[in-house]
């Protein structure tokens, strides 16, 4: 068993607050992604879990027991670093064997484990190669193997696939996930790539400026973003935002945007007339053809299975993801609809989602 709990964790470097009052629980056997833009405190959080940084305040619990006084060597942590941090003066074999040798395991045990791990990660052919001469994806697997071989209670991964070229990245990602599921390994995965987080994680923790913005399942953070930041950060292409005002028509609540009025659907939390709201709609939620919103096609970007259309609505730009069979020309007038179940509404001042 290995569960991690962070309680009101704070880390300051001088006057900058890197991690600001973070509390979260990581259940056993789950892969949790810390997702956020660079500088959001995700790596610092990871390093505090590892014990490489001391929290300024707050507590870290492993299986319910505080670990503040446990040095990193004895936390049972395995960590894969962004640049793999291989021991470049050693061979693949010696890299894999390092942790076991430190533990004073007998030669035969070390040899057996190394060969077994090399088998699993397909490193047998490069066991005698110097680590400095391996290609990046192989290095990544060596780093992973070196970490897993000591059977860590918790596996920490700091943007481990950053340096891998796209096609291979998806493959390694799937491989990693399979391995994690097979081992039932508790893992914390740091990334700034929302697509990676959504495809990999059991649970996504979105951070910004040192704070946790939202915790949820990949589906949850995509469908029900708690605020504008999460809404904009998760999903690609990015969600469109339009300023709106609450109004009513025929006694039904409506939203008045730049040049359009649309029904707001049944929302008890909409607030009084005249309230300023930001309407969010994902490009894949925009319907083209008929509707109350008129727009002009500004740009057409084919994207394989879809095409991304950039549209002007009043002074605002928004993007729509549509079927490639739909032929459009630049400058063409089109009608749009924003179906009410595709709408995300945020308070204009706070950026918090209304639908709570």
């Amino acid at each position, binding site marked *: 068993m290995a569960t991690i709990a962070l309680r009101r964790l704070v880390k300051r470097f001088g006057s900058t607050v890197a991690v600001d009052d973070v509390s979260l629980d990581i259940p056993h056997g789950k892969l949790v992604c810390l997702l956020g833009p660079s500088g959001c405190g995700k790596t610092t959080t990871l390093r505090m879990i590892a014990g490489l940084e001391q929290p300024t305040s707050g507590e870290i619990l492993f299986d319910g027991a505080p670990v503040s006084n446990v040095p*990193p060597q004895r936390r049972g942590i395995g960590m894969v670093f962004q640049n793999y941090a291989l021991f470049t003066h050693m061979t693949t074999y010696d890299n894999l064997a390092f942790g076991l040798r430190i533990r004073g395991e007998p030669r035969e045990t070390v040899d057996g484990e190394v060969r077994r791990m090399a088998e699993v990660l397909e490193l047998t052919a490069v066991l005698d190669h110097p680590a400095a001469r391996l290609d990046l994806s192989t290095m990544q697997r060596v780093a992973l193997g070196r970490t897993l071989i000591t059977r860590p209670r918790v596996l920490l991964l700091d943007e481990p696939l950053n340096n891998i070229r796209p096609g291979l990245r998806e493959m390694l990602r799937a491989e990693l996930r399979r391995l994690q599921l097979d081992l039932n390994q508790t893992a914390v995965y740091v990334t700034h790539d929302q697509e990676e987080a959504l495809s990999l994680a059991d649970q996504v923790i979105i951070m910004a400026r040192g704070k946790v913005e939202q915790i949820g399942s990949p589906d949850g953070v995509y469908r029900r973003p708690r605020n504008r930041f999460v809404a904009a950060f998760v999903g690609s292409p990015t969600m469109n935002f339009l300023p709106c005002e609450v109004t009513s028509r025929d006694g039904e609540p409506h939203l008045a945007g730049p040049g359009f009025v649309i029904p707001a659907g049944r929302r008890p939390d909409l607030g009084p007339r005249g309230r300023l709201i930001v309407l969010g709609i994902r490009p894949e939620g925009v319907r083209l053809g008929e509707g109350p919103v008129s727009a002009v096609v500004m740009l057409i970007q084919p994207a394989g299975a879809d095409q991304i259309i950039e549209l002007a609505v009043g002074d605002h730009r928004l993007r729509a993801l549509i079927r490639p069979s739909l032929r459009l020309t630049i400058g063409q007038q089109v009608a749009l609809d924003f179906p009410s179940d595709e709408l995300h509404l945020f308070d204009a001042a706070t950026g918090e989602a209304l639908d709570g």
Partner: protein
Amino acid sequence: MRGLLPLVRWVAAVAVAAVVLMPVVWAVSISFKPPAEWAAHPPRLVPEEPTLANYQVLFQVGNPVGVVAEMTRTAEPVTRAFITSLIVAPLATAASVAIGFFAAYAVSRYQVGGPMLPFLALTTRMFPPVAFAVPLLVYYRMLGLIDTRLGLALMYTGFTVAFPLWMIKGFIDSVPRHVEEAAILDGASRWRVLFTITLPLVKGGVAAALLFVFILNWTEFLFALIFTSRHAITLPVQVSYYAGAVGRFYGPQAALGIVASLPVVIAGYVIQRHLVRGFTFGLVK
């Protein structure tokens, strides 16, 4: 035109080598010349009557005859100075590089002593060394370190330690912190990390520092001259003894110079393999 370039390169290389090696070649030549040819005009590179007398004089083996034997009777055999140099220089070099390595690690990883410390360490090299001689002479007298091998070794350690500190610090700075952290998370202690991870990764820098400091210590003249008189004279001082009031004994002097340079040549040869490896065995950025 293409075919010319290698030729031009070859000529340039030979020219540079000739300039650099000329003094060495000349010293070798003199060391095999009898006294009459030492300063003969016009100078000849190849001795007319080659002799081993100059070398015999140094170690006082056999019975050198003639003028050389007569002239150098006053000088002591070089064996003692040789032994002194062979003790003092390696000892001081090892101490200096060891201290420099730990200091470099402390400065690079923990900013020990603040940002000014590495600079302050260099101040020992900013004055003419002789400025330190008089105060040190006083202390050395009180401590009984004058004319001792230990005294010299201590002094050489102190005066050279800034070099390995700076040279190795650059190498340690370039070892990614993550590499050490990875080893720590694998269970290694700080010391273990230092010796099994960091040291092997910076061994090119350590090798360079060893060679550099060894050459400094091996050839140091001023302090050796001032702080030793009889028991702990070193080779460079001994070399100077062949230019005395009676005249200049170029032959034995050249012979001693050649003999004295051999340990450095050997040390350089042994270390050079690591120097190259240190620079080419790259790390992942």
